[in-house]
């Protein structure tokens, strides 16, 4: 396990738990990051308040890789402009593309996401696009220069778990970039399940933020993600059907 690194855009991470911020109090950020063993945390640039009150950038401890997102962007052009602004503000090279044109379900616009990814990757950003889990889109994102693919498990904030499981499995099978499940994971057990099936990392926010004990839930996610990863690396043992294995030989006739 010690050599099991998550590598995104050439950067190595030991933790496979990416923390989404923005739904819990800022003064809890440090505790959540520490308890969750988090090395990368997202921040909505629209919430950054440089030099002002309650600036999220003031609460994220040093050493944590910032993953600014383009929340609020309604098309590729806006996402690109927000990403550039993020770099100007010193938030680093990573960017999570969020292009959302639906205020009700907050589902990503895959088409605009591909366009933004292509532009930003060419500009040297380490692009991590949030997307609806669709293989064709994922391939386009790879071609556009994405450094990871971030499919949603269920609508943002819904805590509904791995609703899109079968489609994420296809991405795990077919795409060579890290697959990071983003949005919808509601419980540590669901994070564990996603990791068991070969997902590379989990991003969570609402599930932690809406829990009764936020730092403890962050730790629970950390442990679940580690457990899932270990299980995946170990190779999941075979699972028998309800009735057990048929014992009557089907190939005995070969010995006749």
């Amino acid at each position, binding site marked *: 396990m010690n050599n099991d690194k998550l590598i995104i855009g050439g950067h190595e991470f030991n933790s496979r738990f990416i923390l989404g911020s*923005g*739904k*819990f*109090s*800022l003064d809890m950020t440090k505790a959540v990051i520490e308890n969750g063993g988090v090395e990368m945390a997202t921040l909505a*640039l*629209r*919430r*950054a*308040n440089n030099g*002002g*009150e*309650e*600036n999220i950038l003031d609460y994220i401890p040093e050493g944590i890789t910032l993953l600014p997102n383009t929340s*609020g962007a*309604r098309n590729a052009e*806006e996402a690109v*402009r*927000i990403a550039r*602004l993020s770099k100007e503000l010193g938030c680093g090279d990573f960017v999570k593309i969020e292009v*959302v*044109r*639906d*205020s*009700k379900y*907050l589902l990503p616009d895959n088409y605009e996401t591909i366009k933004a990814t292509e532009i930003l990757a060419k500009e040297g950003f380490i692009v991590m696009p949030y997307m609806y889990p669709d293989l064709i889109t994922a391939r386009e994102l790879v071609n556009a220069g994405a450094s990871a693919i971030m499919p949603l498990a269920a609508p943002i*904030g*819904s*805590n509904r778990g791995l609703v899109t499981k079968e489609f994420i499995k296809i991405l795990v099978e077919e795409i060579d970039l890290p697959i990071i499940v983003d949005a919808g994971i509601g419980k540590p057990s669901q994070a564990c399940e996603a990791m068991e099936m070969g997902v590379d990392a989990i991003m969570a*926010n*609402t599930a932690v*933020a*809406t829990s009764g004990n936020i730092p403890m839930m962050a730790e629970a996610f950390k442990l679940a993600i580690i457990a899932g990863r270990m299980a995946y690396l170990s190779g999941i043992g075979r699972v028998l059907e309800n009735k057990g294995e048929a014992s009557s030989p089907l190939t005995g006739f070969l010995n006749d």
Partner: protein
Amino acid sequence: MEYMEGMDNIGSEIMYKVIGETENYDYKKYKDNDVLKVLQKDIISLEDYKVLLSPAAEKYLEPIAHKAKKETMKHFGNSINMFTPLYIANYCENYCVYCGFNCMNKINRAKLTMKEIEEEMAAIAGTGLKEILLLTGESRNMSSVEYIGEAVKIACKYFSSISIEIYPLNVDEYRYLRECGADYVCVYQETYDTDKYEEVHLFGHKRIYPYRFNAQERALMANMRGVSFGALLGLGDFRKDAFAAGLHASLIQKKYPHAEISFSIPRLRPYINNSDNNPNDVHEKQLLQVMLAYRLFMPYAGITISTRERAGFRDNVIGIAATKISSGVKVGVGGHGKDEKGDEQFEIADSRNVKEIHDMIISKGLQPVYNDYIRL
């Protein structure tokens, strides 16, 4: 409901749907069992929304509040957005019988100069706020679109988000203000009851119900980021008006899915020369019921709680349903940097400053949010 000359007519299919559904809304027919069924649902339909606004739902406010709080957490976390309004003028050409700014009411009228606007904005920005709501009375002559545009341009220097609550405009005028830097438009229909609307809007352009009704849509056609809805509760039948505002907002969201949607839930307030201007049967219980119904019907919509309400009420509805709160509020013209130049629109019930509201939010385990928009 004839349009006046120069008013954009963009068609009214949403308006007719809202008026029709509202007329047919019979809130008296719902019983306890209907409410209990709605409480078990994950997704609230239009029919469920009718139930939540009914008198039958009043005695279930506690479980409804719990359900609403979960939705608020899910969609907004514990974030509470902070802002303040700035009235830059109070001239008005309408005669609306319930409003302190109405042109027949003898009050001190004023309009800030650009220098005064800048001073006011600098003072507000000094409190840490990054979001401002600019308001005028409804006078095209005294506070023209160009005047408002210049105010918006100054606001860009100090604030990341600029909302406007002014008289309804044509699409090209909203587009102009968008280009100046405004991003959010607040227009309130006051009452959706067409007869009542005519009865309380005695003259002026505001009398044209459909022009006002379609303001949000025109603003979105002009590429505004979001729009706010609301009825002045207590003016007409508040259950029907609240129902109509929610339906109006949901149909606009369906037609413009990218639009950010929010609600305000104003009640009638006393004003100068009319201390009896009260919301009759809309008590805090009913006000909360409306907020909770909005939250469950459109869980992703912002809800603003105004200083029309007392501190104790405001402090308790944030986190349950409300997601945005004003502070340091003056409802006369100016008053943030220097003394107010013109009289107030109504009486406020919570005069706490930004720091006090900030501390209250923190004390409730919630997170004050100052900045939540990037002007590109």
